[in-house]
Structure formats: C-alpha cells, structure tokens
C-alpha cells in the first residue's frame, strides 16, 4: 500500500472542533494541497501528520504502516515550517546536516548528501553563511533543503511562502512545482493562498471549519465548485440565486437555460467573471442587459462591475467600455456551475 491514508481523524481544542472526521488518501508522488482560510484546521491536520500534534481519534497510515502512535522523531516525514525554524547559531551546512547528524549518518556521507542537496537548490555558495545573513527566499530554500536531505517519505510544507513578497512567491511556486516533479516525492502543502494552490497542486482539498468540503484537481475544484464557499474562496465568482422549474432557471436577473437540470428546486449557480461574455447585440440565449457601474483597470484585464446583480465581469483591456454603458452579457449554459450543497 503506497501513499498516506488518513482515517477518521478528529481533534478538538476545548469547544472547538479543529479537525472533524477527516478521511483522505494522499497518493504517493503527488503534490497535495490543503487549502482553506485561517482557522479551518489545515495546519492542525498537517501537524498531526508530522507527529507534532496528537489526534483525539483516527488513524494515520504511511505506506501500509500504522504510524498513529509514532512520535515525530520516528516518522520518516519532514516539515518545512512557516517561520522556517532554522537554527540561528548553525551555518547553512550544519542546518541542512542536522537531521543526518541526529541519525548518526557517517561524516563523509553527510558531506556528500548535504552538498548535493544544497547544489540542487542553488545554495552551493552559501554553506558557510548563517541564516541571518541570507534573504527570506534563500532561507526558505535552506529550510526546504534541511527537510529534503533526509529523503522523507512525505514532505510537509506549512505555508512556506507566506513570508515572501508577491513577486518572489509567484516565482517560488513554479520552482517548487518543478522540484516536486523532478523528485517525484509526495509533498503536502498547507496554504490559504488559492493562486498558490492552483499553481502547484496535483490535487487540492478545500477545508472549512475542520472538514474537507471538496477535493479534486485544481481544474475540477475551480471549474466545478460544489458550493458557495468553494466558489468564492477560489478566485471570484458571481453567485446567482433562483429556482428551477419548467426547464428554466428563474432569477432576479432573468431566465437562464442550464446545461442539465440541477438536483434542487431552489438553489445557486456560480459563474466566474472571466466566463461571462460581453457582446454588442443580444446573444442567442442566456443574454441579459446590464449597466456598467465600476471599471477597474488591472493592466492585464478589465474588472467591470455591473448592475443589476451586482455582477462582475473580467475582460480584455481592448474592450471599449465606459461608465454608464449598457451592455449585453452572455452567461453561457456550460459556464454556469451548479452548486449542489
């Protein structure tokens, strides 16, 4: 049995159920992301996998072996901490060598493995420096090297990019993804940043109030959100409420055709701002008229606010749109995601 299985994990702090009956399988070699707002229990879950927090009930199975009762020092799992938690009095080489030295790996082998790992993460020149002499991005890579050098069965990353500035973060996300694919190792990332989750993950589990509300590939989660929470947490979404009868979705904005009839009579659909098309003439179906109330120029796109709604539409900047214009919008049936929960 490969990979990691979580079976019925529960954790309560006082009256707060931090993690509620989570069962999840994480495949070997995949980049799995726990995504959710702060306080949703994602970090608690990660810490339980690391052995830094004890679950109230449930089992953790790693490659077929029950590790539920093993302490952190006996789990072949390493963590990149949010604050990196590098040892300030040790230089970069010794920081990375720490785990190997703890396990009494012979000196020459420590030397070889540490150097190879530092080389891989382009830190070869930094071995003699100390953490306080390095930039945030470099320290982040040191933390990564310190965990990876131990060749863990699973690498845990606890919001490792939260301390980096936006531009560097975007770059590191891509690097992290490439690194994981090159190594073919299992990575579990915790983040509240939906962009980050979409960029790096093979699969995403969206968490809310201690539960996994949806999981799937980035495309599944983004394109077919199950409920309002997921639709709004990942990117932005126009949520339209209404009732379905006589083969049509009746809303305040008008009548819409859906791709297939939903399971409910009253409910919601979500449509992403970039999926709404603007046209000069009335579209064949699902067209509504709306007035421009706000225009935000974002460089690579135009973010338009319209009423009634309020609706948000994202479009290319070559669109000629002025405040107060009345536009035809097309909400195509296949772009409307039915929210089932």
């Amino acid at each position: 049995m490969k990979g990691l299985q979580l079976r019925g994990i529960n954790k309560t702090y006082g009256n707060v159920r931090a993690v509620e009956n989570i069962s999840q399988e994480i495949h070997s070699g995949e980049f799995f992301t726990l995504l959710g707002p702060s306080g949703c229990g994602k970090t608690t879950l990660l810490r339980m996998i690391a052995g830094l927090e004890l679950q109230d009930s449930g089992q953790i199975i790693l490659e077929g072996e029950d590790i539920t009762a093993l302490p952190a020092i006996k789990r072949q799992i390493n963590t990149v901490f949010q604050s990196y938690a590098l040892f300030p009095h040790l230089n970069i080489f010794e920081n990375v060598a720490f785990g190997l030295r703890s396990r009494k790996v012979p000196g020459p082998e420590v030397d070889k493995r540490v150097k190879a790992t530092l080389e891989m993460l382009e830190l070869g020149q930094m071995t003699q420096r100390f953490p306080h002499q390095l930039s945030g991005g470099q320290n982040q890579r040191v933390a990564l090297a310190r965990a990876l050098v131990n060749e863990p069965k699973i690498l845990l990353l606890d919001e490792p990019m939260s301390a980096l500035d936006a531009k560097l973060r975007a770059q590191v996300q891509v690097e992290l993804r490439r690194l994981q694919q090159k190594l073919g190792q299992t990575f579990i990332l915790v983040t509240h940043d939906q962009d980050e989750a979409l960029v790096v993950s093979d699969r995403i589990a969206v968490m809310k109030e201690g539960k996994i509300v949806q999981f799937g590939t980035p495309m599944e989660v983004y394109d077919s959100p199950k409920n309002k929470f997921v639709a709004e947490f990942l990117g932005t979404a126009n949520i339209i409420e209404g009732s379905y009868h006589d083969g049509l979705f009746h809303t305040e904005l008008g009548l819409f055709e859906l791709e297939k009839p939903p399971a409910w009579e009253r409910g919601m659909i979500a449509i992403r701002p970039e999926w709404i098309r603007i046209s000069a003439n009335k579209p064949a179906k699902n067209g509504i008229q709306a007035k421009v109330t706000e225009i935000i120029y974002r460089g690579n796109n135009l973010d338009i606010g319209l009423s009634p709604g309020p609706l948000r539409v994202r479009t290319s900047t070559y669109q000629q749109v002025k405040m107060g214009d009345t536009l035809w919008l097309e909400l195509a049936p296949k772009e409307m995601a039915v929210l089932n929960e």
Partner: protein
Amino acid sequence: MNKLMIWYGELITGKKLIKRGLFFLTPGMMWLILFLVLPGLILILVSFASRGVYGELVWEFGLDNYKRLLGFGIFGWTPDYIYILLRSLLVAVVTTVLSVILSYPLCFYIARKPERTRYLWLTIVIIPFWTNMVIRTYSWFLILAPEMPLAKLAAFLKFIDPGMPLYPSAFAVYLGMISMFLPFVALPLFSSIERLDWTLVEAAQDLYASNYRIFMHAILPQTLPGLSVGIILTLVPAMGMFVVPDLLGGAKYMLVGNLIQQQFGSSRDWAFGAAISMGLMVLTMFSLYLYKRKNKDIDLL
C-alpha cells in the same frame, strides 16, 4: 557645529547637542571617578604599601604583600592564601553551576503557568530579596539546628554526630550561597525562556534529534543571553561573598571574602587586604575572560 541637523526627529545644532550631553553626563561621570576610579587606584597603591607596628599604613612600597599572597613567607612556601582564593573560585563556580541546573526546570515550570499566576510565582522567587541578607543567612541556623529534621536525618545517616548542627560546614555554605544567588540566575533566565520559540524545538524533533541535541541546539542557544547575565551576576559576587561563608562556614570554610574582611578588621593589615583584593579582581577577570572566550558570540563585557 552650528549647522542645523535633524537628530532622531528633533531639529537641533551640533553644538547644542554636545552641551546637552555634557550636562546629563557629567554628574554620573564625576560620581564614578570620585567613588570608583579613585578608590580603585588608591587600592592599587595601598596594596604595595606595608603595615606598621600598630596596624597603621606605612608608605614604604614593595612587593611583600603579593609575595605573602602567593605563599612565600619566612617559613618557606605555604600556599594557604592561594588555596583560599582557589576555594573561593570553586565555591563560586559550583554555586553558579548548581543555580543554573536548578533554574532551568524552575523557569520552564513558571513559563508554562498561565499569565495570571505567572507573576505570582515570580514574586515568590523574588520575595527573599525583601529580607535582609544577614537575617536570611541566620535563618539557616534554625533550619540546620540539631533539633530540626535535616540535622536528624544527617545524624541518622551517620554524616554527623547526633546532637550536632549541620553548620558550620561546606554543605551549609553551599546551601546558603545557592539560596542567595538562585534568583540572580532564575530571573534573567526566565526572561529568555518566556520568549523561547518552541518551533525550533519542534523542528529539532522533526529532524530526529535526541533530547541532548534538542537542548543544545534548540533551547540553549535561545536562552544563552539570559543565562549569561545570570552566570555573571552570580559568579562575580559569589567570588567575593563573605557574609554567608562567615556565618555558615566559620573557620572551617574560609573564603577570600572573609580573608579580606579580616585584614581590614581584626588583623588591621590594610595593605595585605588590598593585595588580596587585587588578587581576587585578577582571578575574577581571568574567569570572565575564559568564560567569554568559550562563548564568543556573547557581547556582554
């Protein structure tokens, strides 16, 4: 000098700034020069003078006092004073080490208390300071008296004869010294332990570290600033301590503090007393130098 500049937000001229500095600095400097630097220099001078017949200072300079301190007397070489100096160093070091060993668990315990009761616990550690040192030392007489459980236990275990008190003895000196100096180590250490970043401990656990490695790499480096202050605050005064060894050690456990006090008191040999003081000072500085060299990253002295 009269050019305007901005000094941490204040618009001022250089001349004014210097004037202001001198105004605030001068009293303190004068105090230090009058009551520390000058007496220190006089002490050095006196240590080379000699004793008159009636115990008065005679301004005849020589190295006799230092020769005597090093053990060269009329009857050949007897290093009694060197023993006393080294014994003082030993007492100070042992007191410091034991205080550190006792302080760590104490500080961890207090740091884990909820904030409401934490300061109550700290107050309990500090309360002994509110009592006079001599009274505190005398109270040990009571605790170590023959009728009390400690002495009875010691007699039962055949460490002392029945009906004898546990003082004066080396044991009593250490008891008194540690109770005296424990707060000096515990308080600065606590301030470091309170701010301990436990993530480093978790990181060490995550990286398979043994308990020894966790302490050495995750706890000790973080608590070193407080620990250093504590060690220096204990080691230096403990070397010259005389009330505790005088009362609890008596003649059986003479330390350099008592020796110096004797010279200035009953022996009326100020010149020799000054020389011993110099010896103690050299020893203290040398110990701190060794300590600093072992801990290069501490910039305390």
